[in-house]
């Protein structure tokens, strides 16, 4: 059991779907060979099938407190890494050569259903859902591993010990969020490490620090001065994704509010939001609906000329206040490449 718990809050009302987080992570952690298809951070459009395709139907986690193994996602389901004719385009010397996917035409990708969403015009809707490893308090991956190769650190970060891992992939079956990948070259499973080498130096995660939308808050859950503590514990406006999976994630989401629907006559239907409450409940449970009610109320207060501390924190006027003290400038640190 970890002594403390680092956590992240993502405000889904602010996510632009720009994938800067994904690229920040990619450049830092998954540039090696055999990691091409890995996206420890993903941003998918919801409602959607996401990555791996239909991950919400793949099982795992805990059922009635008992650990379950679910489906083992394939590279194809993750979207794989498409191969391109880079050589021909960049150094082939052939006029008119342009980037083309090589080999079998892909039928899925890591962000295949981007901006597709759901609903019928004019009431169609979507929002973006960024995901990383949830660094759960009851990690199904830890429970499933027969080699005790996955550890929950004292700061709550869940890491795979690659010296102990034998690549059996029970963790990939067990994780209900399907955020673990297999590296066939190294024969080990790999996943988001919550940027622990940065965090240990007081620098927040790359995905959070580089987010142009300022949607990500980082900090210790028990640090009463941190934004994550206030949003999760004090105000309860940030909630867990699929809490029914039973793993107690430590990535929390501020659920998306949405505009009103248009009724049959083209008038605004004030009673019905564009994103169906049933869908929010499916994603975030009852707590999600309650969180949205609080946000809606705060927004109404501000609209009527009042003030809202909750909205001020979510707006994040000062980026440094988002990171619970993990606001050291990475340029001031001498990093060692291993």
């Amino acid at each position, binding site marked *: 059991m970890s002594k403390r718990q680092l956590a992240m809050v993502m405000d889904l009302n602010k996510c632009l779907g720009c994938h800067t987080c994904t690229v920040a992570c990619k450049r830092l952690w998954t540039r090696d060979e055999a990691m091409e298809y890995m996206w420890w951070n993903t941003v998918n459009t919801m409602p959607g099938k996401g990555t791996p395709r239909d991950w919400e139907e793949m099982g795992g986690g805990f059922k009635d407190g008992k650990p379950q193994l679910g489906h*083992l996602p394939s590279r194809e389901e993750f979207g794989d890494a498409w191969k391109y004719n880079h050589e021909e385009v960049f150094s082939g010397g052939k006029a008119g050569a342009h980037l083309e996917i090589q080999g079998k035409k892909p039928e899925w990708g890591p962000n295949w259903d981007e901006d597709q969403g759901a609903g019928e015009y004019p009431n169609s809707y979507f929002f973006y859902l960024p995901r990383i490893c949830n660094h759960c308090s009851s990690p199904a991956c830890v*429970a*499933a591993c*027969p080699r005790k190769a996955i550890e929950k650190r004292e700061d709550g970060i869940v890491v795979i010990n690659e010296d102990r891992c034998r*690549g059996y992939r*029970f963790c990939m*079956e067990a994780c209900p969020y399907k955020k673990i990948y*297999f590296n066939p070259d190294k024969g080990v499973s790999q996943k988001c490490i919550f940027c622990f080498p940065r965090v240990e130096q007081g620098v927040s995660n790359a995905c959070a620090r580089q987010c142009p939308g300022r949607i990500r808050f980082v900090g210790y859950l028990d640090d009463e001065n941190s934004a994550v503590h206030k949003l999760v514990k004090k105000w309860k406006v940030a909630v867990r994704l699929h809490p029914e999976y039973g793993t107690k994630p430590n990535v929390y989401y501020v659920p998306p509010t949405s505009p009103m629907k248009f009724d049959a006559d083209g008038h605004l239907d004030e009673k019905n939001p564009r994103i169906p409450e049933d869908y929010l409940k499916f994603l975030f449970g009852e707590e999600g609906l309650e969180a949205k009610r609080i946000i809606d109320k705060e927004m109404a207060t501000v609209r009527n000329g009042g003030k809202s501390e909750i909205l001020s924190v979510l707006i994040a006027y000062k980026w440094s206040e988002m990171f619970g003290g993990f606001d050291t400038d990475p340029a001031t640190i001498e990093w060692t490449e291993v």
Partner: protein
Amino acid sequence: MRANYVANADDKKILDPYAALWNSAQAETIAMEGTPAAMQPTAAIRASWSDKPIGAVNKVSVKAIHNGKSMAFRLEWDAPRQNDSHGDNTVFPDGAAISFPLKPGASAMGMGTPDLPIGVWKWQADAAEEGKQIYAEGMGTSEVVDRGALKVKSEWKDGRWTVVILRDLQVIQDNAAVQFLTDQDAQFALAVWDGGSNERGGIKAFSGQQWLNLTLAARA
């Protein structure tokens, strides 16, 4: 079973699975069984495999010889599918292992204990010519103690794997590896993984609760 002494055969010759010298070696067919789901080390694995068949390979033909310097085993079994890679990440490479008690009284089941450890020679089809020598003190504790000491040749042909694993009779490896003496008895057990059936780790076919006996013939 008996490991005959083969004179004038170097390691290279012995490693050839189809070398004539193997024809005269006594073959024993070992019945294999699936490891019990109830003995798997985590509740998630136990629950998931309790209603699935474990142990796709039900028999292995084994031969053993030595040349006074090296000890060699030749394993052969039916494998309609050749799984020599991780494929699309959803299959596992086929594998085989020979385990040995490192102290008298060690059990042939459960990968040893801290007091009664076992040694293992392991082959996996994705590294077809590399064997790993492993030391284990219980389930989930196996550590590779040496990658270089084993020599391996494997071939999949006509729906059958044939694997020859060879090592010096004696090695300097503290107490972490089995040592063989000619004209003496040894004990071993077998395990085989059918990667196409998602067998890996403790999900495998094994030769049962009892060690198999092996007598090393004296040098002629």
